[in-house]
């Protein structure tokens, strides 16, 4: 899952650094992602993983790092199964 997240970030986050250089907890906003770019990331993640982010997960903290994105996708997957 992390590899797919990195691919989405490469295509949509417009980071100033190479995504592959970032650790899972590196701050994506510090790395140059704007609020608007995070929306592109969210929409692209929805396409890539065939999910829809619920409103409560549309927060800055969810899109702060690769790890937080992965945790949110995991949470959505659990909800979809339940």
């Amino acid at each position: 899952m992390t590899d797919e997240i990195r691919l989405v970030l490469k295509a949509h986050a417009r980071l100033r650094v190479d995504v592959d250089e970032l650790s899972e907890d590196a701050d994506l906003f510090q790395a140059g992602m704007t609020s608007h770019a995070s929306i592109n990331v969210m929409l692209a993640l929805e396409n890539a993983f065939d999910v829809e982010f619920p409103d409560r997960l549309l927060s800055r903290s969810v899109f702060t790092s690769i790890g937080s994105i992965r945790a949110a996708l995991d949470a959505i997957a659990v909800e979809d199964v339940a």
Partner: protein
Amino acid sequence: MGIRVGMDLASVADIADAFAMHGDRYLRRVFTDREVGECRDAAGSIDPERLAARFAAKEAVLKALAAPPEFGLALTCIEVTTGRWGAPELSLGERASELARRAGVGALSVSLTHDGAYAAAVVVAETGAVRT
């Protein structure tokens, strides 16, 4: 009474690119139907400058309300429309109103501008009053 100020600058090209890439899904997740309607020209085409100004206003509201990073909120919960005499007006949905209440914010005022590549918005929030 005190005030808080939020401002934001949006790239018109970024908004146009996002619409080109994600289409109606982008519009649906970021803007209300009324906002989209007000951002169409006479021929029915989307005007990215108007969208960018409204996006900047939504971000400016979040800054004025000092939204905590963990506070989840759909941007459609903040609506920017054209009021009487052409002045922009803000309407908050339930979740955004909750954020305003937490911040002790009452009335909100917004000003928009756009010129070529960029659009900007300034939001002034009055504090010390509880929004009902």
